[in-house]
């Protein structure tokens, strides 16, 4: 979701809409109650909905719910 300032009416409207939060987390445990424990990229433990991904795989969560399993991608850094 991009949040760049815009003068386009449609973009200004969609920027105000909630949701569509996407993140990739590492599943640490399936809790058996429809939730899973996971850690974010910086190591923060969170609880997400869904048990579709088994630990220790990575899962894409959309609006706090596990969507699909995603592979672990290589990491790099850059400066601008």
């Amino acid at each position: 979701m991009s949040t760049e300032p815009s003068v386009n009416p449609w973009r200004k409207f969609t920027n105000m809409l909630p949701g569509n939060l996407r993140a990739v987390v590492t599943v640490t445990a399936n809790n058996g109650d429809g939730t899973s424990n996971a850690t974010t990229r910086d190591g923060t433990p969170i609880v997400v909905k869904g048990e579709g991904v088994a630990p220790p795989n990575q899962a894409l969560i959309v609006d706090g719910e596990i969507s699909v399993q995603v592979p672990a991608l290589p990491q790099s850094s850059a400066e601008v």
Partner: protein
Amino acid sequence: MYSLPTDSSAAFSLVNDTPLAAVNAVVLAFTPDGGSIYYQIPPGLTLRVGGRWTPGRETDQHQALAHQGAAVTDQGAMISWDRPDDCAAPKRLPWGKAPHKDDEPAVLAWDRPPVKHTDNVIPWGDAPDKAAPPLAAAWDKPPAQDTEPVDLLYDKPPARDLDKPGRWRSTTLPTPELLATSDYLIPDPLVISLGGDYRLPDPGVPDQPVSIALGQVAEAVAAEPLRIPADRPYRLPWGQPHRNNDDYGLAWGWGHSKFRKDARWRLQYPDTDDPIYKLPEPGDDPIEQDTIIMANLITVTRVSDGLPLAVHDIRIDLDIDSWAWKFQGTVINQSTLAAIVPSWAGLVDVEVVINGHAWVFMIESYNGATRHGDQRWTIQGVSRTQYMAGPYANTSSYMNAAQVNAHQAAEAVLQYTGFLLDWNYLPGDTTPDWTYPVGSLSYQDRTPLEVLLAIARSAGAVLIPHRDADGWVLQPRLRASPWDLDGAYMNAIVNHGIVTQLGEQYQPAPLFNAAYVSGTNYGQGVSVSRYFTGGDKPAPDLFDQGIVAHDQAKERARQIIANSGAHSLVTLTCALPPASTAPGLIEPGDQLEYQAAGETESSGRWRGYVLGVSISAPGSGAVSVNQTARIIRYHEH
């Protein structure tokens, strides 16, 4: 053998049948002395040449007769000139070639004269060569200038007069010595014989040498003053002078008196020294201010045939997130509306030109009402780029079965459509290209424009539509980062003098100096931070399925960092001058500098990014045209 007589005297006879014209004297003396006979030293033989062909004496009769014989031959030839052959007369020119026998020197009896007495003859050798050429030349062809009189040109000077004469040098001048000796040529070989058996009577000294000197008493030739040629001055080429244009001559003459025609006009002379009216006191000096007068020109025509259209209240809009210009106008007559309404043949394209800036729109819709005495319709149009989006374009599905670059993938979407995408339109500040791995570029039921937008926005780029061409420019949303904007290229520079309205709205926003951008199934996660900041203010992580490459993610992260922080949205309204006059048309995606009175930001100078522009031309006829640009300024970078 000859024997001396015993007497004291002896008689000698020198036989001399051959001409000895130039011999002055020959003296032979034999003086007996004691049994010996002495001979006198042979006298010098002096030859004086006064002329080459003096009349011969009697002894020259043989030679003269020989010459006479040649004259007979010549006479026969002369007769032939008088009476040409009748049959050959029409074909012969009267000055034609001489008879062949005249050209043959052998025919002429100019051969060596017959030697009657070869024993005691001093032959003169061959005749000088100089005698032959005049005879041959006399019968040669006539001079060339006599046969070609038509070459003379009377109407223009000879060509050599038009050229500058070449430089010339002095040659060897004839000296007096050369003049004295050049006339006489000594025959070579020169043979002088004193009889066949003649021997000098000197038994003691046989074969005495006899000195014979042939020569010419050279007369002193007065040395003429050497005519040393002086350099001639260059002759200027001359020709007919240029002809003046007489038509442009000023017609001069007596002027017409205006006063005389107007009898009522009279100069009024006051008859008093007092002023007629009291002059007002001078006020303060006026304030000099610049005035800008705009003469706008708006034309609206139909593209297919150039039909002029009466469209009023024109408004044109574009923002940086749109892929097509929008058009709105008012039509006030039925005929114009009928010319542009959509028909079975499709939408009608119209061209709008405002002060040299041209747009092409397709009229999508119209609405309005007709009342008594008032006909007014509002028409809306968009750029032709809308043809690549719904509802005009067909949708398709795709997956790349091989690696493909983003640039190639974008062009493949537009293949055979006639629309073009300029990826590297601007030097520098361009969106980098990247490579899609196999299967990473996949979509379903998408229009071409949706695919282009997905490709562009995955790298933080935008599509700027062309005004009057079918295509877009793909460029970064912010070409130069805000922290590099002071050294960046400015597309438009707006002076405060041309701005009629300036508004600003401040909006707070969080500032980021780091961002994490990652794909979900392909590519890599890239953590990007700004130089010299440490990256202590990260933006929320961004996961996008369309991110598949490092450069792509880096550019996307740069846009996230650059678009953060408190900013102002500036609304700037000014005239729309032609492209040759600053600022021209301000377009979204441009980088703009506003110049107030000073050169620093504290005095009113700032730079920003153009997010949108609206061109309005209210009314009809000589309307006022204004462009309103919406510019974003970032304050915290």
